[in-house]
């Protein structure tokens, strides 16, 4: 299972660690490992108490922290020639080194994200041309039910029969389907027949979808458009219905 659950605002264990490091104004090159481990574990405990799903990556990191901590506790075998740790340098045999490298790397990515986010962005700061007709044969023509039936039929044919036999079908009513379609349209403004139909999982659903479309078209909630013969059909809300 890979449901990426947002732990409050943290994207992952590295994000959380960076946050802790910043909060405590810790020198990233000299992380007090037991302190940070304690805080990290406390955070995860809180999550558990709040019944928030803790992604496995966070637990892996917890284990890593504990591992580093235990290594730090062991007396160093080799006599240290240069035990002095320069401000920005971490000894090669320091168990914290791999983690520090990853944190630095991750910090860099966060900086990049910030740079990208500051840029003007499509669909946020500027928008492309929306609806148009080209006044040529390409112009969208009114929907033709014959074509709709054809596409419908081809999809039915495509569906492996074995699938529908083995699946325990969810019972879906036309009303539910209408609601689903409208919800999707409110979110997305426009969907296409094939796009929507291809995510349906059974013939029954496909049939219900088809009937729901006809119903919606009949009560003039949606517009069905086809740009050319045999093309996919665009489904959109009628103006002002949104």
């Amino acid at each position, binding site marked *: *299972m*890979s*449901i990426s659950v947002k732990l409050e605002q943290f994207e992952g264990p590295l994000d959380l660690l960076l946050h802790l490091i910043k909060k405590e104004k810790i020198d990233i090159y000299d992380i007090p490992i037991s302190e940070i481990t304690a805080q990290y574990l406390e955070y995860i405990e809180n999550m558990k108490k709040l019944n928030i799903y803790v992604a496995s990556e966070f637990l892996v990191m917890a284990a890593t922290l504990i591992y580093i901590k235990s290594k730090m506790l062991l007396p160093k075998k080799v006599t240290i020639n240069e035990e002095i740790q320069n401000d920005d340098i971490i000894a090669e045999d320091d168990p914290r080194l791999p983690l520090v490298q990853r944190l630095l790397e991750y910090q860099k990515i966060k900086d990049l994200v910030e740079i990208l986010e500051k840029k003007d962005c499509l669909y946020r700061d500027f*928008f*492309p*041309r*929306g*609806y*148009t*007709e*080209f*006044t*040529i*044969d*390409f112009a969208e023509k009114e929907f033709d039910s014959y074509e709709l039936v*054809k596409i419908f*039929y*081809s*999809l039915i*044919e*495509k569906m*492996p029969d*074995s*699938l529908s036999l*083995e*699946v325990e079908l*969810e019972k879906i009513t036309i009303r539910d389907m209408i609601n689903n379609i409208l919800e999707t349209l409110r979110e997305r*403004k*426009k969907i296409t027949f*094939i796009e929507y139909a291809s*995510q349906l*999982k*059974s013939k029954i659903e496909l049939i219900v979808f088809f009937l729901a479309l006809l119903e919606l078209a009949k009560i003039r909630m949606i517009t069905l458009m086809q740009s050319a013969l*045999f*093309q*996919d059909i665009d489904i*959109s*809300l009628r*103006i*002002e219905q949104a």
Partner: protein
Amino acid sequence: MNNPLKEKYGPLPIVEAMIFSSENPLSAEKIASILELNKEDVEEIIKILMKEYNHNEMHGIEIVEIGGGYFFRTKIPYAPFIRKIVMGKESDLSKSAMETLAIIAYKQPITRAEIEHIRGVDSSNPIRSLLEKKLIKIQGRKDVPGRPHVYGTTKEFLKAFGLKDLSELPNIKEIKEIIKEPQLKLIGEEDEDKTSENNS
């Protein structure tokens, strides 16, 4: 941000931008409600815009009204040129051409009948268009009655998709790893496995 409504031309440029970007023909009511203006004022503004575009030979685009909604379109006399742009864009491959190409890529060498069996529809048009675009080629004939042509992909195909060779084609299993979307859970996992067997 300053209030753009209060700028030199008032809401006019905003109305222009709104009509331009709307994905459906846009009604004066809708514009009015967003900008908190009277419908009449918005209609007045649209009239000015239509005068600027529609009756000015300098512009190749115009605003038209259909069923109470306004949208930009290219002016009719320019259609022959626009067709070359819009059709050129069609080299983006239609959905049917993409489907056909995908089938050929994964199942080559393959006959038209086999392609049509998978797609469930006549595929002579997409095959012709793919041949014209040199994305597929006739690779020979199949030793069955009628000795039909078999099709395969070309070097141009590899180039167009940035592949070094056919082994670089994504395989369905890998893609499914990415596509494992939680919300599409109508079918049990075993069923999905079955599907991939059918696919391969």
